[in-house]
């Protein structure tokens, strides 16, 4: 099976699933709205159902290998409490299974979420992370079991100190190949952020997200990557300026191709904050460094805006001006919006890329093509028809 990346349509929110050739799954953020479940609202894709169908099961219990929370904003962790299992994995039972609670084998957690508390789901993630960290601190014999594993991404802030757990830490500039206790030889993750300075300054108005590059090879011995996908949460132009400076200074842009990209998840749901300060009309010119980041694109690179439909209005993000800047770099056909790119009836569909030996490729859009049966949706039955 080829590796895949799926960007879920969740309105202004992020939720992406990386599936490796060996079926290892890495979920980046979650935005599971209760209203999206089942057929309640046709305008929302049932991401939970798709996720359950896309991940593996162990003893009938669904699990993701890794969950990466880029940062604690609600549109990146909505639904965590209700849809993911928290607590001792040994106590996962019939009720949890029935409720479709997903076990997170390995949690990737930024200490930054300990520095602020903006929503309940974020607090639950923090509590679960603390539970796992305690097991590791206490050297609990079950600490390395699936469901207890954890990586600390980046540095500690002012409120929490995990110094004695540095062996669990992955800092910017690191290449991670051990995913859920399994060494990958055709996949790796280059950690770009968060930096120490961001976390120490917890009052910084710009959210310090985890930023990373997912890297796929065709063969283990290859030096070239067949796909490089950039995930940046809500990182802003200042973050990217630092990323650019540090990566180039350490030559990682050459030795690790750490800035190259084929797929770029537009930060903060296609916000102008990637290009400059907001409001956009007060800072209308994109920063040179942001444009430079985009220039690291490879052939036929694609930008994905995980946001609601991008309209030229004042309801931002998504910023229409940001979309225009992206299009200047990749072209109109290579800028995809999760809410509008592939809509079946009224329901936006995930944007999925299959990672081939020649880079990411998109299967053609699918439609319900059965020639028999009644309409898939309510069709004309929900429309008032008047005959004169």
């Amino acid at each position: 099976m080829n590796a895949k990346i799926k960007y879920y349509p969740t309105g202004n929110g992020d939720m992406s699933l990386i599936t490796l050739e060996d079926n290892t799954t890495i979920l980046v953020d979650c935005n599971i709205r209760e209203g999206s479940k089942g057929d309640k609202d046709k305008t929302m894709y049932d991401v939970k159902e798709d996720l359950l169908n896309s991940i593996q099961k162990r003893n009938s219990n669904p699990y993701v290998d890794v969950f990466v929370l880029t940062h604690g904003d609600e549109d990146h962790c909505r639904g965590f409490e209700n849809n993911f299992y928290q607590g001792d994995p040994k106590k996962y039972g019939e009720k949890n299974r029935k409720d479709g609670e997903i076990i997170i084998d390995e949690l990737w957690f930024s200490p930054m979420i300990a520095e602020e508390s903006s929503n309940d789901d974020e607090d639950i993630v923090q509590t679960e992370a603390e539970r796992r960290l305690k097991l590791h601190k206490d050297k609990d014999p079950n600490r390395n079991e699936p469901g207890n594993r954890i990586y600390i991404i980046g540095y500690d802030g002012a409120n929490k100190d995990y110094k004695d757990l540095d062996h669990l830490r992955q800092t910017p500039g690191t290449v991670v190949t051990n995913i859920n206790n399994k060494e990958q030889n055709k996949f790796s993750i280059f950690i770009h952020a968060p930096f120490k300075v961001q976390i120490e300054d917890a009052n910084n108005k710009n959210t310090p997200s985890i930023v990373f590059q997912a890297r796929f090879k065709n063969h283990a011995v290859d030096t070239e990557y067949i796909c490089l996908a950039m995930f940046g949460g809500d990182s802003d132009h200042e973050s990217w300026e630092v990323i650019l400076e540090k990566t180039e200074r350490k030559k990682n842009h050459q030795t690790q191709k750490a800035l190259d990209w084929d797929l770029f998840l537009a930060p903060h749901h296609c916000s102008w904050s990637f290009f400059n300060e907001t409001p956009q009309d007060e800072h209308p010119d994109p920063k040179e460094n942001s444009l430079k980041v985009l220039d690291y694109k490879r052939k036929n690179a694609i930008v994905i805006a995980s946001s609601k439909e991008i309209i030229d209005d004042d309801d931002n993000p998504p910023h229409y001006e940001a979309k225009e800047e992206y299009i200047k770099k990749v072209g109109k056909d290579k800028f995809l919006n999760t809410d509008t790119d592939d809509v079946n009836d009224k329901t936006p569909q995930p944007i999925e890329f299959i990672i081939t030996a020649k880079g990411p490729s998109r299967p053609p859009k699918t439609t319900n093509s059965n020639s028999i049966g009644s309409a898939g949706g309510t069709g004309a039955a929900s429309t008032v028809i008047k005959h004169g």
Partner: protein
Amino acid sequence: MDNLYSTSLSEHKGTLSPAINFLISKLKDLGVYTGGKLFDGDTGRVAIPITIEVSLPSGGTVDDIDIREVEPLLLMVSKNYYPFIAPKVHSDRKDFPKTRLPHLYAVADQAVLCINRNGQNDWFAEHTIEGFINSIKLWLYKAGSGLLGTDGNEFDPTRLDSYNGIHSYQYNKLYEIVTKKNSVAPEFNFAILFGSVGANSKDGLSYKSFEALPLIALKVTLEAMAELKKLKPVENPILSILCWSDKEETFSDYQTDLPKTLEDFENFCDQFSIDIKLALKFYITNKLNTRRRIPVILALKRPKKIVGYEGDVEFLNFTILGSNVQGMKIPKNAEVKNQSHIEPFTSELASRISGKENREKILFLGGGALGSKIFMHNLRGGNNKMTIVDKDIFLHHNLARHSLHSGRLGKNKAVALIKEAQDYFEVQQTKNLKAIPQDLLTLEASDFNEHQVIVDSTASLNVQNWLTVNPNIQNQLLFRAEIVHKGTLGLLYKEGKDRNPRIDDLVNYTYFAALSYPEIEAWRQYDSTTELENLPVGLGCSSTTVLIADDDISLHAAIFSKLISDTAKVNYGYVYLNNRSDEFPYIVKSNLVIVKPFENYACINDKSWNIRMADGISSRIHEASSILKPKEAAGVLVGLVNYKTKVVHVFDLIDAPSDSIAECACFYRGVHNLPNAIDEIKKRTGGLIGYIGEWHSHPMGLDSLSGQDRSNVAELKVINDKVPIPTLSIIVSNGKILPFIFE
């Protein structure tokens, strides 16, 4: 655009059916047909030119295969039969990379896309035109992304759009011949295969090949074939050529342009370093051409395992139209036709198709209606290790519900079923398929020892008794299958580990289970109130399946066969109840009754008798005894007796009635409500389960019957002998169960 096929086609001028006109308008709506010229295709088809935009990987196509962002195609649409015949999708490009892609049909020099694996016309009927176009897009996307060969990294074999006859052989066998270079003589890279021309092949183009012949066997084989021909056999023998290259080179390209003449064929073989000229020279020189056509199989080594079997050699099949004048040279323009290939029925093929791994050797006791159907399910699932024992003859009335067909009338059932099975395995050894056309009571230890599973479908109590005490059954798993209650209830019993629960435990326990399972109670009520009817065929058949319809037997046989195949999954004993309602709409429900091992006690005073107690009975007795200690405790045993096997089964206890009196040296067992309780059990179990004895405790530790006990036994024996049942008295003393029985 000289590189398009359509440039050489003439414009279509005639009218088209409304269905095709609708197709054209839909293609326009979808933006794939821009309204250009339509063309006359071949054989009554109109060619509609369309263009498809193809989604390709960001870095270009995988392996740089020449799939383009816009692909021109021709939809070949049957003028008369569209939409019942799906349009064929031809690439309009002469330079389409057809030799490098799987899922393409071999049609002369054109690439015909295989959009859907099975039943193109049915698939098209189920999908819209938009869905059809999407499938084409998906095919081209996969072609460009290296995703067409998705069969677990296996090599998709060449697809033939049309062929002339079929050559049947075992792929693994031919693979072994090729890889072990089992040629007709060491210096050659070809084998001569012995086989036959298909009996139903009107055009003489369907062949079977069985074995490779060594050089030394050719002469005698030819002589035998000549003799055989005089006998006008159903299938005439023929010799085929299997030819391969001695080079290690593998070939990944597909051959879409297949040869039509011998000259083309020789050139075709040259591409793969296959010396067909030498093979044909050998064939003709040795006068092996006993028929006009020479079947030839070419073996091509592919880079991966082929989809559908375990080898990496693909076989391409042809016939060359030569002469049946033996030794006559074949002209260069001799006609060559390509053939398809298929595997004969083998146990491996059947297992693969059925997804079954039923490799246990099964001994079938009884080849009647039910047994024959379970036997055939196993046969079709690939089991070629079965013995069947039946002394009966297959008679006309058996046609009503037996697996055998009229061609086997008058034959012994066991022999006929095994012959049927042997006919299935045309190319495989069948030494493990064995018929024993005799009374099963004559079976010897060796007949049992070589089997892992025994299936008794005789529905005979006599056979049940014989199996119960048969010392030859030790490590085998014993099943008993029977159908009762006018065919509405099927019962499959499976013995537990070390024959516990044993078959008699299970059968008798099922009667008792009438108290818990309504379907059993209904059967027991029916049996106890209805006299069985017999068919007017004059047969003294003891089986209660006599009045059952064929569909009912199949209903139960199918699930029984499935359960018997799953021997490895459970090691406990069970009774499987497969029940359908008596009337329309015949709702089918199943129940699995797990039966725990029984405790066995030999009687103290007569070791030939055994008491077998269902799980939990002895602990209930001990518990009741300890509660009343130091007084005596007592109660009544519920079960049944089998005089033939000298076994009493105890399934339940009834507490001593309320008018009983317990003392330290005596227990007066009362009668209050006891007859009613027993009658209720007897009624619900169809008279089979009821009072079977007494138990009482000796708290003082006496291990034998007291004087009072002996007096009671004598009194009870007079009553019990009338039933008749033996008089059973169980004493509980010093934590032991001590049964005493008196016939």
